[in-house]
């Protein structure tokens, strides 16, 4: 039967995206920003941020909901960057060095996070959120106390004056905008960082290829029904851990790309917002806790960034105070996540009831 396009069910399905779009479009004229400026800003932000949001796809596919623990990957990336800056490695080599150093750290952190989440079945998301905080404490301990004392720190420029611990803000001058300027195309005033886009395309190819592999298939199976997968002999625990490991590694690379574009790194807070932002983006893009696809990521990043550019300015012009816009932006971000979680939970309950009713009606006429 052809799926005829019912407007009402389309709206009901991606209620979140529709509300979001309405608010954003309404505030574009209010913001008083020229379209070129908006598009230009949007393009750089997509180049900078999309990679991070992709790291959420695999855990959703493996049935672990939104992996707020991707913050661990961001921390691994930052540790890689600290070492790169310690040796003052510039250009692409700097990014490569940071990524390669961040890789083993993020694999280890991903493995630890995965096994902990396996112990908290049914409440993975809140556990991954708390995991993010917990490792934030450990990250601060390592970076503020071990660097320079236990871990040799060569370059005095990034150390605190007391000799150990890394500075609050780290200047990433040697690697600043390296990816963006490597292959920059300018069309009608809009800068397009083609190399960043190329990397994102490579990531999409990886995800499409991964879904076709046996491990990808196992992950989809585990995501839908752990019991049946287990009975079929799929190593459920290991598969879930691998999905978290890959997500953490992607978050590590994503954070490096993000910070390279920003040009400097707020050593102790840069990773805080990554989990929140990526979750809001993928949910706005129409993903749910059990189904997420590449279009969801692109739509989400586009919409959320459009909002992040336009709404604060709109708030400024409308209410005359910038921080209303700022708070409004945060409110929308958190509101979107809360709303999508509620809709998802409500819909899965309704489906369960519908299935039972179906069973009953079938039982009725049999």
């Amino acid at each position, binding site marked *: 039967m052809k799926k005829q396009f019912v407007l009402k069910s389309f709206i009901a399905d991606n209620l979140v995206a529709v509300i979001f779009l309405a608010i954003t479009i309404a505030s574009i004229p209010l913001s008083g920003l020229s379209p070129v400026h908006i598009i230009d800003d949007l393009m750089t932000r997509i180049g900078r941020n999309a990679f991070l949001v992709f790291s959420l796809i695999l855990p959703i596919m493996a049935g672990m*909901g939104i992996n707020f623990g991707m913050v661990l990957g961001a921390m691994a990336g930052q540790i890689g960057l600290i070492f790169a800056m310690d040796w003052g490695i510039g250009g692409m080599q700097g990014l490569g060095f940071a990524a390669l150093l961040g890789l083993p750290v993020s694999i280890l952190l991903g493995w630890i996070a995965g096994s*902990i989440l396996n*112990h*908290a079945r*049914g*409440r993975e*998301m*809140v*556990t991954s*959120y*708390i*995991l993010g*905080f*917990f490792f*934030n*404490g*450990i990250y*601060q*301990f390592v970076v*503020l*106390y071990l660097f320079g004392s236990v871990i040799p720190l060569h370059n005095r420029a990034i150390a605190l004056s007391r000799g150990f611990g890394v500075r609050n803000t780290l200047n990433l001058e040697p690697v600043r905008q390296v990816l963006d300027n490597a292959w920059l195309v300018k069309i009608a005033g809009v800068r397009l960082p083609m190399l960043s886009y190329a990397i994102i395309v490579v990531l999409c190819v990886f995800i499409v290829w991964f879904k076709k592999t046996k491990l990808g298939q196992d992950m989809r199976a585990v995501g839908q029904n752990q019991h049946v997968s287990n009975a079929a002999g799929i190593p459920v625990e290991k598969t879930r851990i691998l999905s978290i490991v890959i997500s953490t590694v992607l978050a590590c690379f994503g954070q490096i790309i993000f910070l390279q574009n920003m040009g400097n790194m707020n050593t102790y807070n840069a990773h805080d917002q990554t989990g929140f932002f990526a979750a809001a983006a993928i949910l706005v893009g129409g993903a749910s*806790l059990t189904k997420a696809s590449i279009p969801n990521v692109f739509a989400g990043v586009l919409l959320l960034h459009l909002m992040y550019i336009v709404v604060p300015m709109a708030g400024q012009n409308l*209410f005359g*105070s910038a*921080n*209303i816009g700022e*708070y*409004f932006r*945060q*409110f929308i971000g*958190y*509101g979107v*996540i*809360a709303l999508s*979680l*509620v809709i998802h*939970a*409500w819909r899965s*309950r309704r489906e369960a009831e519908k299935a039972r009713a179906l069973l009953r009606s079938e039982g009725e006429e049999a």
Partner: protein
Amino acid sequence: MNTTDMQKRIKEAAADFGWPRIIIALFLAVLFILAPFVKVSIASSLSDIINRFGMNALLVLAMVPMIQSGCGLNFGLSLGVIAGLLGSTMAVQFGLTGWAGLFGAIALSTPFAVVLGWLYAKLLNRVKGEEMTIAMYVGFAAVMFMSIMWLILPYSSKNMVWGYEGKGLRTTITLDGYWNRQLSDFLAVRLSDNFVFPTGLILFVAASCAVMWLFLRSKTGTAMTSVGSNPDFARASGIDINKMRTTSVVMSTVFGAVGILLYQQSFGFIQLYTAPLYMAFPAVAAILIGGASINKASIVQVVVGTILFQGILTMTPSVINSLLQTDMSEVIRIVLSNGMILYALTRKSKVTR
């Protein structure tokens, strides 16, 4: 009673008391032993701990109803805190001072707390499973929404509003001249030069604990506990599960509102905007340190947990800093509180199925 029986008894008590709590208690004891060696006065530390206990006890107590009724850890406590902030800002706006100020604030915030709690409960009842994550983000969204409201709502009292614009509230509003330390200084006893016992505050906390203890023994309280440990059992005995969950959420939000008022009066300021964002986590950590699980919590655990948690928070900066000449207290606080929550989340739920 032969020795094996004794060992079994001790092991059982230890397991029941929970290994992490023993480790934390020992850690606190070590800090107290070290204090004199690093010239940290025990008296002022004790006075600090008692004060902080009084400030936070009610926020931790607010966790009990929802845990008992099976709604899990109340990461949406910020809703209660918002109700409290609304009540206290209105009390200051009406210029209520002294006792009238404090109790006026409580009276003003309770209706907000009940309404917010009721809406929050409606949402949670519709969404069984992943309640904690949803509670957290609903709380965050509400705090952000209120941050906008603080700028728009028509407050006019001069010492609350931004000076130059005359509209929108300041981030912190002083309570001097209103009901600052109203409870803490009431019948305060000066035990030694730097140890003042805030009798009023502790009495209020004791009274609230008594109210909660009585409620848990009441008919509805018993019903609520049964919903937490076995919802099917409760339903079979004719209990309206959703009604019980709603009562527990409303109670938790009201206790959260009164809790923040207690916190403010001893802290001396009303903190607005993003201050309540992370209010829930220390309270959750405290009750878990007290030995509560995801669906079982008692008043004793609230008291023990708050004392241990606040004890660590007060002692680490002073003792550890002078010991290692570095401020490790921030790291210890984060690792300790979140470690406890992780420990509780990853333990099999204690209720036997």
